[in-house]
């Protein structure tokens, strides 16, 4: 059960990162940095999807 909560915590952190990256990307003036921030946000988003699935499995 502890593992489950650890994974959930990690998931929450990742969601936080995604949101921060997204807001940073919007605020950044420089186009190249904006692009990189956006791409990283997409990667984090994939991670969130995967972990979400895993959390579902752990709760079963």
């Amino acid at each position, binding site marked *: 059960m502890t593992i489950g909560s650890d994974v959930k915590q990690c998931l929450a952190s990742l969601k936080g990162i995604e949101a921060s990256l997204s807001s940073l990307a919007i605020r950044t003036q420089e186009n190249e940095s904006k692009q990189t921030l956006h791409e990283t946000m997409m990667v984090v988003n994939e991670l969130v999807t995967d*972990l979400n699935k895993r959390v579902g499995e752990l709760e079963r």
Partner: protein
Amino acid sequence: MPIWLDVVFRAILFIIVLFFITKFLGKKQLSQLSFFEYVTGITIGGIAAIVILEVRHSIFIGGLAIVVMASIPYIVGLISLKSKKFRDFVEGKGSIFIKDGKIMEDNLKKERYTTDELLELLRKNNVYQVSDVEFAVLEPTGDLSVMLKKENQPLTPKDLNLTVASVKEPQTVIMDGQLLDEPLATIGRSHAWLHTELEKLGVTIENVFLGQVNSYGELTVDLFDDKLQVASPQERPLILSTMKKCQADLELFALGTISKEAKQMYSKNSEKLQEAIDKITPILKG
């Protein structure tokens, strides 16, 4: 009209005339004195002084002389723009003083520069050892431009194969406690945003001497009250450290789980995150 009044009148008039003529001739006249700008500058000053003091000269003739003298560098400038040969003749070419690390004594002699003067010019460029210099040229304006040998040049990120995030110029949005509308509009921010950011820092706008927004939209301020400590923006380092923590967590999960499928998922994702971290570190660190 008494003489003194005439002199006052002329002085004011010629200051105005000279002001507009310098404006018309542009920044070049002020910044770099080529031969023509040097000579005409002196002459115009001389004419103005004579016409102001010697009231028997007519103002019109003095003004005419000044306009003619001012138009000469203007015309010369126009022709110089078109013809390289004319430019070399009028403005002069640079003479090479050091080439391949060796001093060109003949060129020094031609320009009548002594060794001491060469050393002095080098020192002005922060060079104390002649052997550090690969190439140096005396510009027509009298400045020495120095190219150091590669091993003596300052180290750049390129030399270290470092990737650095490119940045845009910061905008100054607060000066002397006053909000500046134009730079704020340039970066597409509203007054409300600025007030929120100031609130986050816990300062009022009246107490801000200077406030700038960098290309990541972070506000940094300098306060009138130098005893107060202001927090520096922490958002980007925080994102980076959270990302690193998550990456480590994922690796831990991969080691801890029994399910093969889950193990694979965790390690794949931790690799993905590591890649992302490597890519974004220059931005989040900077």
